[in-house]
């Protein structure tokens, strides 16, 4: 069964450093998403991406965040200057190929720890 993969599984970084979280969505999916979950809290939507551009983003997704699909398979989330409060699990998801294919397939997540 096809699945979304994410690397690394755990990333530890110093405050102020840049991090890039990587995701490989399911190959025929066209809609991509990033979510995060701070320990013990709800899963929060960050951004959705379609046709090589952001289609929607939340208030959390400020100028410190960016997303990119650098090639035909990877989808990345960059945090430019990490803060302590960015520590969370970050989940990538994909859906498609049709907009009405609403089931989102989530990856296993990357645990980001900012020291």
């Amino acid at each position, binding site marked *: 069964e096809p699945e979304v993969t994410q690397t690394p599984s755990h990333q530890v970084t110093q405050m102020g450093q840049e991090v890039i979280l990587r995701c490989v969505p399911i190959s025929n999916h066209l809609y991509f998403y990033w*979510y995060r979950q701070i320990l013990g809290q709800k899963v929060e939507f960050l951004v959705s991406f379609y046709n090589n551009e952001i289609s929607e983003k939340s208030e959390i997704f400020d100028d410190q965040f960016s997303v990119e699909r650098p090639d035909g398979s990877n989808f990345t989330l960059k945090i430019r200057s990490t803060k302590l409060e960015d520590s969370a699990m970050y*989940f990538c998801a994909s859906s498609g190929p049709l907009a009405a294919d*609403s089931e989102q397939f989530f990856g296993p*997540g990357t645990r980001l720890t900012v020291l």
Partner: protein
Amino acid sequence: LAKTTQPISMDSYEGQEVNITCSHNNIATNDYITWYQQFPSQGPRFIIQGYKTKVTNEVASLFIPADRKSSTLSLPRVSLSDTAVYYCLVGDRTDDKIIFGKGTRLHILP
């Protein structure tokens, strides 16, 4: 997006049928009802989706009354591995995002 209300937590025993009810009084005509499951330290996983009446798959059943103001996720013969958080979501199928609530923390006891 329609607001949903579901119990914060539930306990049950192995082998029992578990029913988790979700209220969504403001559901819109175009909205579908979707349930996701999340195990600890894992990403959410789609369980089932429906619009009205009853939907069944290999994992669960979803019962939706005619007024669609509530829905019930039914898990037959649960096992310890069904211990997870279950999220009820209501929205248009073309919505660009999922807005998760706190979900129902289901704890299965031996």
